[in-house]
């Protein structure tokens, strides 16, 4: 099987054993690696109803068929598990340099099962596999742990870690790698913590079988050259994703004050210009990346002096605008704190913003938090609460379960402004005047995340009050973007440089020997989209249409100010978007794939599980 290493590593933490199994040829035929393998292995191997934080849940780690080969952006690693944040399908991917090492070590997937009796880390040096004691690492920060393991093992090892938040099973804990890259979403780090798995260190020296090495090399060279020759290539790098901050404010979509507004008047203090002029040290790239989006920064104030990768746009939006921290130094410092605790800064900023609004409304009282304050704009309050959450202390123990569960615990109407879908906190785009973007968040399979479909420019270009064509475009994007997570390639070359999608079937054929059109590849992606829906239907009682609605704030409260003032998206509009979306997808009006649809996309094996839910 060209493009694949040919092996799956299965590690049982309970028994402290491991086994190397041949890659199942049916799996590789029917599902492209990365997200494809994650989805199918979770469906097959995690028992229905498993506790996400119990020994029956499994962590699936998978690079894709193009990972580690010579083309731009071939360095993504997919992580998956039953999500403790949502109770349904969960995945998240990470860049940096670890994905090729997994492949070079000889593995297309790593399956981690069971639960260790004491802290361990997984050591992989080709087929030399060990579970080593992590007792000296337990309790250390995510960044510090990576530094300690680098010191212990040597620079050639690529390392993923969790921080105290993961150890304490915070449901939005993140997996950290390369001192600032994270698989942040859906709480897979909490699953690691539940298994007493502190880290994974990998080094590999094997080669990857490639169908046509000469063609692969030539196409790879052409792809790099095409990137370098794109108009505006040079201008992309300096600010990276932070460069979009001004524009998101201009279109009134910048999360501000716990998504009360879409415009932050002080955005110029935290934008890309502020980043490069005040704190950036250098650019930082992942494996085989010609367009380094990472910004390595140093922030110094009398109270602190730290290095941090970032902040990226999402962190600027959720820590900056959403909690109204109005200077880039404090945003970067809060970013560092959450990185070291091992908290996803998207959910982390969202949760703190939610708590600040609860405090403002008297739902959290000063006496509940030891007489202190929790005010918008205060980095001291932000940092204090992040620590309380990471260690599950006091009110932090409630907030550590995310805004959906916390709002149920707090009451007082706080569920109206718990900004999430399916239990996953909303990321960096306010969407009350962007129907395609709203639908993207509502229907993303993991919950309110932007990486499945990003459609604001489509909304702007086709009319922000118009609904026609929005569901169709979201569906298309939900096949295109997750396909990158199956191939385990970075999307940025495509979305930021306008890199042509035609390149990918060409390199796919050269590496794997499989002649596939782009539409063929998209069909694989549609198969997985339906499977992840079925997974969440199987695991979450009552899952379906009711899980696809945004919070009440977005359906009932007009935006108070900025370019989108007065806008909101009434429930009847939301219902129309959902009706059209389900029709396009071949799902019924409860949001359940029909029998015909399951057959059409090649997952009729799910029919026996799904059929009773349609009644």
């Amino acid at each position: 099987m060209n493009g694949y290493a040919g092996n799956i590593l299965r590690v049982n933490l309970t028994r402290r054993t491991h086994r190397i199994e041949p890659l199942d040829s049916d799996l590789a035929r029917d599902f492209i690696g990365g997200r494809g393998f994650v989805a199918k292995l979770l469906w097959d191997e995690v028992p229905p109803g498993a506790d996400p934080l119990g020994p029956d849940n499994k962590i699936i780690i998978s690079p894709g068929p193009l990972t580690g080969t010579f083309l731009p952006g071939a360095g993504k690693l997919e992580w998956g598990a039953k999500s403790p944040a949502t109770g349904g399908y969960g995945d998240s991917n990470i860049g940096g340099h670890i994905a090729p090492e997994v492949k070079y070590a000889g593995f297309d997937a790593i399956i981690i099962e069971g639960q260790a009796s004491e802290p361990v880390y997984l050591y992989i040096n080709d087929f030399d596999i060990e579970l080593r004691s992590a007792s000296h690492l337990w309790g250390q920060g995510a960044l510090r742990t990576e530094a300690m393991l680098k010191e212990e093992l040597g620079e050639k090892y690529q390392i993923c870690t969790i921080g105290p938040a993961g150890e304490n099973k915070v449901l939005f804990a993140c997996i950290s790698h390369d001192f600032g890259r994270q698989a942040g979403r859906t709480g897979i780090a909490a699953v690691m913590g539940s298994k007493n798995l502190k880290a994974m260190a990998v080094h590999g020296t094997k080669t990857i079988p490639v169908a046509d090495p000469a063609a692969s090399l030539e196409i790879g060279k052409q792809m790099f050259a095409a990137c370098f020759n794109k108009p505006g290539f040079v201008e992309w790098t300096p600010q990276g994703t932070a460069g979009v901050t001004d524009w998101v404010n201009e279109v009134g979509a910048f999360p501000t004050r716990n998504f009360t507004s879409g415009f932050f008047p002080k955005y110029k203090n935290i934008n890309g210009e502020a980043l490069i002029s005040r704190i950036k040290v250098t650019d930082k790239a992942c494996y085989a990346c010609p367009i380094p989006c990472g910004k390595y920064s140093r922030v110094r104030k009398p109270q602190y002096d730290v290095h941090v990768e970032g902040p990226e746009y999402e962190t600027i939006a959720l820590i900056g605008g959403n909690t109204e921290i109005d200077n880039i130094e404090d945003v970067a410092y809060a970013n560092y704190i959450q990185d070291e605790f091992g908290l996803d800064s998207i959910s982390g900023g969202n949760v703190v913003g939610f708590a600040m609004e609860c405090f403002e409304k008297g739902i959290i009282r000063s006496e509940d938090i030891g007489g202190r304050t929790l005010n918008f704009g205060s980095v001291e309050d932000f940092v204090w609460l992040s620590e309380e959450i990471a260690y599950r202390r006091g009110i932090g123990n409630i907030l550590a379960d995310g805004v959906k569960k916390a709002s149920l615990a707090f009451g007082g109407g706080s569920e109206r402004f718990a900004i999430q879908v399916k239990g996953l906190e909303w990321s960096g785009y306010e969407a009350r005047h962007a129907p395609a973007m709203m639908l993207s968040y509502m229907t993303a399979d993991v919950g309110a995340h932007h990486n499945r479909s990003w459609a604001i420019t489509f909304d702007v270009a086709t009319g922000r009050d118009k609904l026609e064509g929005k569901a169709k475009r979201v569906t298309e994007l939900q096949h295109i973007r997750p396909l990158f997570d199956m191939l385990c390639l970075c999307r940025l070359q495509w979305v930021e440089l306008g890199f042509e999608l035609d390149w990918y079937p060409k390199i796919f054929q050269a590496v794997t020997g499989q002649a596939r059109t782009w539409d063929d590849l998209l069909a694989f992606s549609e198969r997985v989209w339906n499977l992840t829906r079925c997974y969440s239907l199987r695991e979450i009682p009552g899952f379906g249409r009711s899980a696809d609605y945004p919070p009440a704030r977005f359906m009932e409260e007009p935006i108070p100010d900025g370019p989108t003032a007065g806008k909101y998206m009434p429930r009847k509009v939301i219902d129309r978007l959902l009706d059209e979306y389900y029709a396009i997808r071949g799902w019924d009006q409860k949001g359940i794939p029909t029998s015909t649809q399951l057959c059409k996309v090649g997952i009729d094996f799910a029919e026996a599980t799904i059929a009773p839910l349609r009644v």
Partner: protein
Amino acid sequence: MMGIIHVCVRGHVVKYFPSELECFDFPAEFPLTILELLRSLNVDPLLIMGVSVNGTKQPKDALIRLGDEVLFFSPPAGG
């Protein structure tokens, strides 16, 4: 005065430009602002994150001169 502007577009919003071309020459009547150029191209200025003229970042209300090279940037669309 009529003349030619060389226009390039970086990123995904190229699909909203005429013929979805990354780079093209466009005949225009001068004087002309960037906003007026975008309207002539039937492109909503809100789709554009930034503009560079002859390699220098410019606001959308800046004037363009004959022979200028204009580069439009798409907003980063999230990883």
